[in-house]
């Protein structure tokens, strides 16, 4: 969705996120990475997947509706430089936040190899944008319905074994995917950056709910990140923390869906 947020549109840099809430009074605050923006129009683009109540509420909004609020841009911008060969790996909805970073890496003069993964063809997003941006694009799907069949770590490993070894890898996607991307690049000693999307409340450093262990030290994703050296991140801990409210979230989502069905508003739209 495109959101009118002129200040954010003006200040945002690749890699930063916003906190949004569909409802000022009762809504939950969730972090979403800014995918793109138009400073002239004062808008930012957010891409998200419907996974629970809050994202469903967002998905069901129509053009012209108002969000409860948007706050940002938050987090440190991506550190972009001319590394040489940069590989951008995106999985699922992680492809969205990868776009502005890929763009910035390309603009900085890197040779960009993009590897995009999705469960199935219908869930692959932004393929065209990446095709235009990158020097080489590899698409994989879990079920083989499009591109190569398999997961992103396979082409990533192949690229790492090439004679011209990549100098930099950026991986964004589900925690498990980022973990294995890091395991893939580790033996090659290639610097690998990941962007973490943990549970947050304020997004400004105040609650510490987003904390992760990086290199044995506690770091806050919202102010110290969201990007970290993937080889230092303790993904196992992070994945456990991501599941902290799974049951409650599930319940809220069920209740919401039942309510929507009863009043006949459910427009099972796929984002």
């Amino acid at each position: 969705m495109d959101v009118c947020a002129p200040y954010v549109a003006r200040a945002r840099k690749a890699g930063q996120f916003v906190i949004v809430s569909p409802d000022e009074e009762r809504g939950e605050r969730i972090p979403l990475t800014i995918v793109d923006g138009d400073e002239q129009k004062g808008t930012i683009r957010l891409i998200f997947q419907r996974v629970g109540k809050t994202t469903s509420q967002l998905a069901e909004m129509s053009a012209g509706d108002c969000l409860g609020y948007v706050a940002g841009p938050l987090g440190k911008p991506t550190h972009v430089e001319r590394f040489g060969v940069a590989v951008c790996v995106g999985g699922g909805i992680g492809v969205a936040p990868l776009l502005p970073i890929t763009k910035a890496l390309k603009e900085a003069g890197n040779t960009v190899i993009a590897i995009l993964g999705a469960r199935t063809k219908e869930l692959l997003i932004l393929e065209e944008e990446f095709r235009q941006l990158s020097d080489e694009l590899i698409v994989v799907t879990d079920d083989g319905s499009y591109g190569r069949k398999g997961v992103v770590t396979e082409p990533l490993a192949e690229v790492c074994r090439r004679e011209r070894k990549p100098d930099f890898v950026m991986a964004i996607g589900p925690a498990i995917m980022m973990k294995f991307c890091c395991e893939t690049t580790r033996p090659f000693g290639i610097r690998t950056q990941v962007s973490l999307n943990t549970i947050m409340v304020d997004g400004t450093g105040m609650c510490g709910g987003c904390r992760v262990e990086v290199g044995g030290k506690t770091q806050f994703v919202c102010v110290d990140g969201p990007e970290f050296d993937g080889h230092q991140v303790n993904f196992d801990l992070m994945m456990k923390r991501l599941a902290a409210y799974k049951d409650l979230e599930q319940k809220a989502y069920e209740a919401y869906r039942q309510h929507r069905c009863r009043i006949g508003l459910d427009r099972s739209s796929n984002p």
Partner: protein
Amino acid sequence: MSEISQTLKELLEKHRAGQLKPKDRFAIPPQEMPEQDPAVRRFNMNEVALGYTEEQARMEALRCLHCPNAPCVEGCPVRIPIRDFIREIAEGRYQKALEIIKGYSLLPAVCGRVCPQEVQCQEKCTVGLRFKDVMKSVSIGRLERFAADRAGEAAAVPEAGESTGQKVAVIGSGPGGIVAAADTRRGGHEVTIFEAFHKPGGVMVYGIPEFRLPKAIVRKEIETLEKMGVRIVCNFIVGRTRTIEQLMKEDGFDAVYIGVGAGLPKFLGIEGEHLVGVYSANEYLTRANLMKAYQFGEGADTPIALSRRVAVFGGGNVAMDAARMALRLGAEKVYLIYRRSEKEMPARVEEVHHAKEEGVEFRLLQSPKRILGNERGQVVGVECLRYELGEPDESGRRRPVPIAGSEFVLEADTAIVAIGNGPNPLLQQTTPGLKFNRWGYIEVDENCRTSLEGVYAGGDIVLGSATVILAMGQGRIAAAGINAYLAEKRRRGAGA
């Protein structure tokens, strides 16, 4: 005016005739604050202390000796003429009492509730000294609250000063920011408050729970500011949305007050702190207060752990708030683990008392060594170590010394870390030229002026952890500094 008792009538007559001697005043029993029954209130969010009745307030006011040297005023960070407002309460002139307070403190309904009076005004009270018991001092805080609650509705909105055409940015809408905004607005400037959260009020809305400070009170104070013409912009993170430099160079602000607080929670750095079910007190209280997680599924969408057994680490007011909140969220057992003894606890006596009454189990001279988890990464217990008190340390408090081999395990599914906060690094990272000390707090002079021209700061981001009233005091000093600075700037502008 409501009915007052015969006893009070007689006392008032003597008082007016100048015949109420100190010994008569000492003989008036300290008025107990009516409170919700602990067995009931631990299951609801309503305010615990219900406030004095008129009879009680006037009776309590008559306990004041009206000391010529007013030692209580010395103990007040903003020097409210306590004696004078208490005299008005005794006479039933509550509006007048409130006006006197408002000349010095903008938030009496808040301060009357959350100020640590027992270490400020009431510590110096002659009546308390006479009984060698600070709890028997005149209840200045409760009287302040009474005046605010009773006469607050009718209170006039302070007027903005004659327009200067100058612009002031106030960063943060906590108690310091509110005072700085009001005072600079009274100075005639165009004032904008920038708040990072979606609701203004700072620690008064995200931190201090409803049962100790009803949010309606804070909302009213914010509305007063708006009526004065102060603009409040929420969801605006100075340092990210705009930097201080941009506010001053591009957006035309002539002066800035930084009152962002110290909101970065500290952790213990022990094993298991990343487990699911471990919260900073900030997160726990923010979810519960600001995001209303206690209404999850009914009026709010932010979840919070459904805890059975909760261990809170720390001994300050925030630890008490977290422990008492956990009870209200349905925990069966709440432990408060503190490594010194009760005497060293930084929390207010009243908060400790309330927590105990509600059933929080105090585990003193104990400290967590590690948090234990199961295979799903959820908290299942806390391994603690027993301590004893040794020699006094640099803070003057006796140093807790661990007793070797004294480890034991407390069963718990939630752990809340309430050991204080540090400064947020955001402004330091994004404001070149602004001087910070080595702990990350902003350096200011006695007028709350920072190293950058036109930029002032106060409250927790300067003092470390302070109180509402200290933050307000600094907001006032800074506002006076800003008003003077802007007047000088106008003079220079006119002379040029």
